[in-house]
C-alpha cells in the first residue's frame, strides 16, 4: 500500500506542478489509527499529506460539487465505487468533465474502522498496511494485526462490482480482479422473504432510531438539490420533529429520490450514527430495477441514462 501512496503523491504533485489542477482532493491520515480524512491539497509541497490503504472508505466525489463554480480545475482520488459517483455527477450536469482530473485507485476493499479500532491498542500508531488477498495486515507500533476481509470489511465491499475505477484519467497501480464475495442482493432477498407485518416491524425499529441528522443525505453524491425538501421552510413539508411517521417519510422520500441514480456507494450506511441499514432501501430499488429493466448499477458506465429517465417500448407495464 505504501507503493500506491507514493504513486498517488507523485501524480498529485505532477498535476499541481504543471498547473493542470489547482486542487487535489484525496485521503489523508485521520486522527484515529484506522481512519483517513479528506484532504484538500493546493500546493506540490502539500502532497505528502496524501495516503492510501484500507481505511479510505469516504466517497470524495461529492466535494466536486463544492468546486463546480471555482475558477480552477480539481483532481480527485477515487475508488471504483466512488468513480460511479463521478460519472453520475457528470451525467447530471453537476460538474463538467474538462474541469476535473480523476485519479483512480483500484481498491481491494475497505475495513470498518470501528471494528479495527476495537482490536488495536488505543495508543497504537499505524506503520503500514498490506493486502494479502483475503485479509489485510495492519502493522502498528504495538504489533501486527491480520483482519479477514470477510469479517472486517464494510458490507458494501463484500459485494463490490467495481474494484477498478470505471472512469479515470490516471490509474494508480495494477487493476484488480473482480471478486464475487457474496450474492449482491443476498441481504435484500432475505428481507423480501419476510411477511408484510414483519417487514414493517423491521423498518419501524430502524427508523425509530433516526436522529434526522441528515448525514446520509449530505454525504450522498447524488443528493445535489440546491434546496432539499427537508430543509424547506415555506412550506414546511416535513418538520424536524423525530417520530416514526416523519422519520419514515424522510427515509422513503430519500430512497425514492435517488432511485435510478443511486450508485450504491454505501456511504449512507457508513455515516449513519445510529447504524440504520439505509443502503438496503436503495438496494431493493436496485434489485427491482435490475429485475424489471435489466438496469446496470447507475454510474457503472459512461453515458448510461437513469433507469427512470429512460423509456423503451420493451419496458414492463405492470400498471397499465
Amino acid at each position, binding site marked *: 500500500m505504501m507503493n500506491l501512496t507514493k504513486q498517488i503523491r507523485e501524480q498529485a504533485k505532477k498535476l499541481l506542478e504543471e498547473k493542470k489542477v489547482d486542487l487535489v482532493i484525496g485521503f489523508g491520515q*485521520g*486522527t*484515529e*489509527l484506522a*481512519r*483517513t*480524512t*479528506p*484532504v*484538500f491539497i493546493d500546493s506540490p509541497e502539500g502532497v505528502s499529506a496524501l495516503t492510501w490503504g484500507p481505511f479510505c472508505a*469516504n466517497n470524495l466525489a*461529492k*466535494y466536486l460539487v*463544492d468546486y463546480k463554480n471555482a475558477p480552477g480545475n480539481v483532481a480527485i482520488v477515487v475508488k471504483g465505487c466512488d468513480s460511479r459517483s463521478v460519472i453520475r455527477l457528470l451525467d447530471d450536469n453537476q460538474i463538467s468533465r474538462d474541469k476535473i482530473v480523476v485519479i483512480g485507485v483500484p481498491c481491494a476493499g475497505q475495513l470498518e474502522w*470501528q471494528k479495527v*479500532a476495537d482490536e488495536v491498542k*488505543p*495508543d497504537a500508531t499505524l506503520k503500514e498496511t498490506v493486502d494479502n488477498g483475503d485479509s489485510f495486515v495492519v502493522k502498528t507500533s504495538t504489533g501486527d494485526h491480520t483482519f479477514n476481509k470477510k469479517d472486517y470489511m464494510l458490507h458494501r465491499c463484500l459485494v463490490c462490482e467495481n474494484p477498478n475505477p470505471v472512469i479515470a484519467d490516471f490509474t494508480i497501480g495494477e487493476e484488480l480482479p473482480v471478486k464475487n464475495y457474496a450474492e449482491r442482493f443476498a441481504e435484500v432477498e432475505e428481507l423480501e422473504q419476510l411477511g408484510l407485518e414483519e417487514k414493517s416491524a423491521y423498518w419501524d*425499529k430502524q427508523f425509530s*432510531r433516526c*436522529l*434526522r*441528522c*441528515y*448525514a446520509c*443525505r*449530505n*454525504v450522498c453524491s447524488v443528493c445535489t438539490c440546491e434546496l432539499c425538501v427537508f*430543509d424547506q*421552510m415555506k412550506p*414546511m413539508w416535513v*418538520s*424536524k*420533529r*423525530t*417520530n416514526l411517521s416523519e422519520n419514515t417519510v424522510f427515509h422513503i422520500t430519500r430512497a425514492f429520490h435517488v432511485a435510478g441514480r443511486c450508485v450504491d456507494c454505501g*456511504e449512507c450506511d*457508513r*455515516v449513519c*450514527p*445510529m*447504524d440504520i441499514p439505509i443502503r438496503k432501501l436503495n438496494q431493493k430499488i436496485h434489485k427491482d430495477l435490475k429485475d424489471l429493466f435489466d438496469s446496470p448499477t447507475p454510474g457503472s458506465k459512461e453515458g448510461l441514462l437513469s433507469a427512470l429517465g429512460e423509456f423503451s417500448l420493451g419496458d414492463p407495464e405492470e400498471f397499465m
Partner: protein
Amino acid sequence: MKAKIVNKGQLSGLLDKLAKDYDLVAPVKEETITLFKKISSAQDAFLDYTNSDVSPKGCFLPQSEKIFSYTYTGDSLEIVKPESAKKTVLFGARPCDIKAITTLDPVFEGEKFGDEFYSSKRENTVIIGLSCSKVLSTCFCYAFGGGPCDGTGSDLLFTEIGDKYYVEINTDKGQALVDANSQFFSSESTDQLAKDKEELAKKLAGEFVKKVDLTGVKELLDSDFELAYWDEDPYKKCIGCGTCTYVCPTCHCFDIFDFTTGDITGDRIRCWDSCMYPEYTLMAGGHNPRPTRKERIRNRFMHKLKYHLDRYNMVGCVGCGRCIRKCPVNIDITKIINDLKEVAQNA
C-alpha cells in the same frame, strides 16, 4: 463523603425496585447501538458499554417534546400544557455525560427565564452515574477537568470494583434513594473500596491517548474572530450534517414549531436543532448571518471553546469524544484545539 456498597448480585433487585418506584432510564442496546431508554426491568439494562452512541441529555431535553396543545378557531383559543415530569431515575450514565448536564443547567435555569420543561425533569430525576472501566481512543474528558470516575453532577456514583459496586453518595437526593432502598445496600466497610476506586481512577487517567492542550486557545479566540484557520481544512471537509450536534451531550439548540394536521387543534413542539444546518439562522427575508459552512463550523467550535465559557464560565465540551467517532469525515475537535494552540503559539 458518605459511601455504600452494592454487591453485584443485588443490582438487578435494586434496578427492578427502581423501575417499579420510578421511571427508570438506563442504557440499552438496540442491535449495535447503545442509547438511553425507559426500561421496565433490570434485564433490559446494558451496562457493559463504554460510551453510548447517543448521550442521555434527552432525559432532560428530549429530541422532540410537546410544549402544549392548542385548540384555535381564530376567535377562540385554548392552551393545554402537558403534565409535569414523572419521578425518574437515570441509571448508568457516564461521568462525562453527567458533567454535560451540569453545563446545560445554567442555560435552562437562566438568569431571567427558566424552563419549566427542563427544570421539572431535572428536579424529578435522580442521577446515578457509573464510572468508566475503560478509556477509548477518542476519550478526552480529562482535558476539561473531568475524569472516568468523576462524580460531578451525580446524586450517586457507582464504581464497579470486582464483584461489588462502590457507591458514593453525593447529594441528599442520592441519600434519600439509598435510604428508601437500604435493603440493597450493604453496610460493610467501604474503606478498601474507596482506595480501590482511587487506584482505578489513577490507572484510567494514565490511559488517555488524545493529547489535548488548551493553552492560549481561549485567548486566541477572544482576540481574533477572523482567524485564517477557519478558511482551512475543517470547513472544506465538513458535509454540513447535524451528527456532531445531535450526539453531543452539551449541545442545546432547539427549534420550536407547530404541528397540526390542518384542523383547529395542534401541538407546539420543541425539538433539537443544529447550528450546522443552513436554515438554522436563515431569516424570513432571506438574509443569513452564517451563510456558509465556514461560518457554521466556526460557530460550533467557538461555542464549545469560547462562547459557553464567556456566558456561563463553564466549558462547552466535556470530552466524551462522540463527535470524533461519529463525524463522517473525521473532523476532530481535539485536532482543532491543538491546531489552534499552535496558531496561538506562532502568533
